[in-house]
């Protein structure tokens, strides 16, 4: 059976200017840092980044902001990253703020063949501006549309050669969601096991969603 392992050099070549990149991680935690290294090495610019937040200044995903490769950011919170705040204020990054739960659902929809989701979150606030309000069973909801990307960056705890993934604790966060919602899904796993070693009931992301797994020798086990 063909495995999905790929070298860092080959991953670097997948990134192009103008792509939309989706990235797992939440407040610097459970971030696919090795794949962010690859993205930075590629030199790709003018990216649209979809992520819960933009990390801290020059840390984890925040390195993409510091290097100036992001033109547009779709996120729920930027308050941790002073670079992002400054670049948004200067108009150098276009920011779309989405409530956290709605962002998670928009990505989930994108990965599940759905056009969007109806939620009460954001009704009567700035978030509702320009969005459709739909009445179902006499209740008003906001239509939040699906999000997809060209490439997803996923941090997993364990991967097997087919890209079946498990996660650990709160390092899970947006990772299983972004894993499903992109044309190409890349995985940075802390540990690698053989086929059959993961109890099949504990697999969170089926390998069917995964295109490439960063080869084991490229992965670093000692990370925050």
């Amino acid at each position, binding site marked *: 059976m063909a495995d999905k392992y790929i070298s860092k050099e080959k991953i670097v070549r997948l990134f192009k200017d103008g792509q939309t990149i989706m990235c797992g991680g939440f407040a610097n935690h459970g971030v696919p840092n090795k794949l962010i290294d690859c993205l930075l090495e590629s030199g790709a610019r003018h990216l649209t980044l979809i992520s819960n*937040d933009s990390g801290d200044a020059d840390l984890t995903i925040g390195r993409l902001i510091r290097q100036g490769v992001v033109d547009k950011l779709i996120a729920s*919170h930027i308050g941790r990253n002073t670079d992002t705040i400054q670049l948004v204020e200067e108009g150098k990054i276009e920011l779309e703020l989405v409530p956290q739960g709605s962002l998670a*659902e928009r990505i989930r929809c994108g990965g599940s063949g759905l056009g969007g989701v109806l939620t009460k979150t954001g009704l009567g*606030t700035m978030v509702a501006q320009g969005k459709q309000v739909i009445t179902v069973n006499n209740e008003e909801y906001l239509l939040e549309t699906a999000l997809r990307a060209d490439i997803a960056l996923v941090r997993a705890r364990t991967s097997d050669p087919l890209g079946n993934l498990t996660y650990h*604790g*709160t390092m*899970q966060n*947006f990772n*299983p969601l972004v894993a499903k919602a992109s044309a190409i899904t890349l995985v940075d796993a802390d540990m690698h096991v053989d086929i059959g070693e993961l109890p099949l009931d504990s697999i969170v992301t089926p390998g069917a969603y995964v295109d490439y797994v960063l080869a084991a020798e490229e992965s670093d086990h000692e990370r925050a």
Partner: protein
Amino acid sequence: MNARERIAKQAAAYFAPGDVVNLGIGIPSLCGDYAAPGVMFHTENGLVGVGAICDGMLAVEGFSNATAMRFIPVPGASAFDSAESFGLVRSGKLAATVLGALQVAENGDLANWASPGRVFGMGGAMDLVNGARKVIIAMELTTRDGKSKILKQCSFPLTGKNCVDHIVTEQCVIDVTRDGLVLVALLEGLTPADIQKQIEPRLIVADHLATMPV
């Protein structure tokens, strides 16, 4: 007990054993210290069963709350992705959320994520006020320069409309009701008039006014 701790203790009195509760940053994050045993704490990134904040030799890899502080999960904790996390928030299974506020209006409108020149993002706050069965605001009654935070109408961008149930401050507890704001508890030594002069809307005084110990 300082003012912040007094607010947290008073807000934690709303939790019952078995409740799943989400705590915001700042004063709300202190509520865990005063909660009844058996209350389970939720974190937005995706876990129910947040335990003590820890670092150094107690730090457990892989457990970090929504503000990136490491914690020890309690026995019986469960971890899941962020879509599941907010599904739980909106499902009605989240008993309460305790949040800070910049402004609260007479009708329960809340503004707590942006003020002029400071737009950092709402994070999970809009989902929490939409989904939690009880929305408790834990805050100091006025701004640092003595301006009222309880207003007839919010001027800052809203987090949610008509969403606040209780406002817990260092001086009093105010319930948001259909009739208006009702003063239900008052710090020992203060009078309702002391509170009224610090807030903009007219305050209704409850028939049975509780006393908050200093």
